């Protein structure tokens, strides 16, 4: 049985006596008999701490990762180094076991960390305002569409077919409720073909840069498409590539969203991750999620507090444009620590190292017989190739060789898909020449 209720039997007896009750059962007298679970829960009895640890280790051992499965997969989840400082500081129990900062006087730690996080995200995005996090890249994009939608009615949204297929799926799921019409714009040679957009009046235009294929998009073409219809431009950006690329804001984004996992969070089987969200200053009153502002306390000292709260669900209720309450604060705090650790020169260096690794790997793979470019457009830290053997098979066979070779991807009706003929390969700063050479050699073997 669990041992997390501190009371001794004597404590319980005393407390029950104070309440005039004879048994713990009587605490639930208000629950009608017919609804009582007389048999108890059909779960195994509780285990001791070492027994739980043993079982969790058994489960962990049934997964392959790290040196057992050297990672060349990306597609929105990247194998970056998480340095000791980020890991240790990010797991401090003061951050881990706090609630949402409803009482600012005892929550300055989380609030100030979020303020610093917001500053970093705003600079990466090149936009004045950033919120205190959303769930993940997909949910940040959904929120961006809701923000851009006309407050009155349903809106049409143009979404690049080279936006992550899972994100597009999430957008479509939630559109069933919001009523937005989601129009996916096809790609040509790995880039979004805005000329192929059907007639219509979009409220928002969404493009990823780099996109799902790792391709650098022509964001100005997306801006032009948006301007033609008075639509908001939403740019999904990668915070690591941001070390080398011009910011979404500079390229004309009204709203920037992104997946913040690369900033100090391990791949974690897909979560918890971090939804990055930034926008132009004049949109702040429609911002989803929490926002931390700097202010003063009664003695005139600097202090931080969640602000413009009237936007949020607990106050606006059914009129709120977002329902977000619990977000991903701890992951945002880790990102703030990671970005401080990287610093100005480190982020640029990180992006450069990823791009170098990708270039080296791509050229080496293209040297193998039968390997071809999947798209010819320029890429940065991730790229897709066509192999003489189906990519899913390559991934399976390479796993036997100790590599996560990449992610099988494709294009259907001009739209990016997961599962397909091509292999999407990503290279982070953790990959050495020796690993890459071995990887390329193995790919050569499995496609022969």
């Amino acid at each position: 049985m669990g041992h997390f209720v501190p009371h001794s039997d004597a404590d319980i007896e005393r407390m029950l006596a104070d309440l005039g009750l004879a048994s713990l059962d009587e605490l639930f007298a208000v629950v009608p008999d017919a609804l009582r679970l007389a048999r108890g829960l059909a779960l195994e009895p509780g285990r001791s701490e070492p027994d739980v640890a043993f079982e969790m280790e058994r489960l962990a051992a049934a997964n392959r990762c790290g040196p057992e499965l050297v990672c060349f997969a990306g597609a929105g989840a990247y194998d970056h180094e998480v340095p000791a400082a980020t890991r240790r500081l990010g797991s401090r129990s003061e951050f881990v076991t706090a609630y949402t900062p409803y009482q600012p006087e005892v929550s300055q730690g989380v609030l100030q960390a979020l303020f610093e996080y917001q500053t970093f995200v705003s600079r990466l995005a090149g936009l004045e305002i950033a919120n205190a996090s959303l769930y993940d890249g997909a949910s940040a994009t959904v929120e961006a569409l809701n923000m851009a939608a006309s407050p009155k009615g349903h809106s049409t949204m143009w979404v690049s077919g080279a936006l992550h297929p899972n994100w597009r799926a999430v957008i479509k799921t939630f559109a069933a409720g919001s009523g937005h019409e989601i129009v996916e714009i096809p790609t040509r040679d790995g880039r979004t073909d805005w000329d192929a957009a059907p007639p219509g009046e979009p409220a928002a235009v969404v493009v990823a840069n780099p996109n799902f294929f790792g391709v650098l998009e022509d964001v100005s073409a997306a801006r032009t498409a948006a301007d033609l219809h008075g639509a908001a431009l939403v740019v999904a950006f990668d915070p690591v590539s941001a070390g080398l690329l011009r910011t979404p804001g500079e390229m004309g984004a009204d709203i920037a969203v992104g997946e913040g996992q690369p900033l100090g969070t391990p791949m974690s089987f897909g979560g918890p991750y971090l939804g990055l969200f930034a926008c132009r200053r004049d949109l702040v009153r429609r911002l989803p999620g929490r926002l931390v502002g700097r202010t003063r306390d009664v003695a005139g000292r600097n202090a931080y507090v969640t602000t413009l709260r009237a936007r949020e669900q607990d106050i606006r209720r059914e009129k709120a444009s977002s329902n977000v309450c619990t977000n991903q604060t701890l992951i945002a705090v880790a990102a703030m620590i990671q970005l401080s650790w990287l610093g100005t020169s480190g982020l640029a260096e990180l992006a450069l190292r990823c791009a170098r690794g990708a270039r080296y790997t791509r050229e080496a793979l293209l040297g193998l017989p039968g390997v071809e470019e999947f798209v010819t457009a320029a890429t940065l830290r991730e790229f897709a190739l066509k192999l003489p053997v189906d990519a899913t098979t390559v991934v399976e066979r390479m796993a036997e060789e100790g590599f996560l070779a990449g992610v099988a991807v494709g294009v259907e009706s001009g739209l990016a898909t997961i599962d397909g003929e091509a292999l999407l390969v990503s290279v982070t700063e953790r990959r050495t020449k020796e690993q890459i050479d071995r990887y390329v050699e193995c790919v050569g073997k499995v496609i022969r």
Partner: protein
Amino acid sequence: MTSEHNARVPAPAGRATSAPVMGRDSEATIFEYSSPGRRAWSFRSTGLPEWDASELVAPGLLRGAPVELVEVPERDLVAHVTRLTHRQYSVDLGAYPLGSCTMKYNPKLCDDAASLPGLANVHPATPASHCQGWLELLWSLSNALCEVTGMKAATLAPPAGAAGELTGLLLMRAWHDSQGETRTKVIIPDSAHGTNPASVTLGGYETVTVPSDDRGLVDMTALRNRLDGDVAGIMLTNPNTLGLFEEDIAEIAAAAHDVGALLYYDGANLNAILGVTRPGDMGFDIVHMNLHKTFAVPHGGGGPGAGPVAVSARLEDFLPGPLAQRGDDGTFAWVNPARSIGRVHSWYGNALALARAWSYILANGGDGLRRVAEGAVLNSNWLKSRLRGTYDIPFDRPAMHEFVASTSTLKKQTGLRALDVAKRMLEEGFHAPTVYFPLIVEEALMIEPTETESVETLEALAEALIRIAGEVAGEAAHAPRSTPVGRVDEALAARRLQATWDAVCQPS
């Protein structure tokens, strides 16, 4: 046998007034510690060719200068962030009786479980044959949550309670669509949490509010008057946000089902009924759980959480995918339900939070989970009984895991507001209760001690609250004085918005 070295009356472990403070200054921002040329980073030596950025990125796309972040050495970064942690209250530091939020102590073994490299370092696109441990974990957790809620099948993907709500509402919509029906309204009680109506709107429905009666329960007559063929569903939490068990729940379920509506369970209050009764047995069709309340996923200063959704058999085919499933040969694979509403997360949800929850369930087992509910309800009723006579208890029925008190009478007598009580509690070494929620109680103090606080901590909480109620008029308005900052000017924050350091440096 009691050791004579131990005090006869134990000290309240949940009281944090001894937490050290080094000074009364503000902590500078990380930006103010920055100085050119300093750095913390280092990277792996890779042996790769050192191409220049200009050889890798087309000139039009390459940024001119690096993004300006900060330039700090690791030592200064660590000092800064560690000082921030010293300016932060947390469950590990002391009691956190924040109603509705279930701020219980989260066992450290769950932290260890979630940091196992074999869980934390797995890429989400790893072929299923190479991450069988993860799929087994998700499958096992999903089954356990179905047993706890009395439902048929579950998705673990929603990353928080509100995301679970919206997922549940989209399931409701898919169900009615499948019946060839278009319904427009969802009923929620006036005591509902703000995410409920916000989710209803995002689900494409109109919110209809049903009042609470003088028992603090759903007003049955009013409910019946609102139930018609336009109602897609009713969203309830049971116990409700007053901490009261909705005794008419079977009748409510029957009334909903009679008009073809579904019953939705907001599982934020599941802690109270673990192993005692189950939403499925009460007649609920859709249940979301807040694993960050009930199943010891720590709140992380506001997240990440996890908001799985479990459903009855008739809704199983609509669940979001992919779901982990065990095949006849004992191996695990991803499947997508036949008429799935689609994905609700980039991958599979907040997986490491799910691993924490699974380790918590393993540690407690079925018997331990019931013990959790018993402890939570015992503590709440005990603390409530200590406060009766000092504070108003507007709906004074047997409490479940939390209860709502009020300073209404005290406000008339001495001007004491719920907000003042909250700020004074901080000086007393405790986190404040939830204030001004639920909206139907004036000057509400919503108190949830949770099962993990000792009786001495409860006594200390009671004494502090009683002391505050007895203070001379106006005293509490000065609180808090012993915290890192005093009362914060929220109006200034909104009026002169400074949401980044850059806004501080260049006031507009």
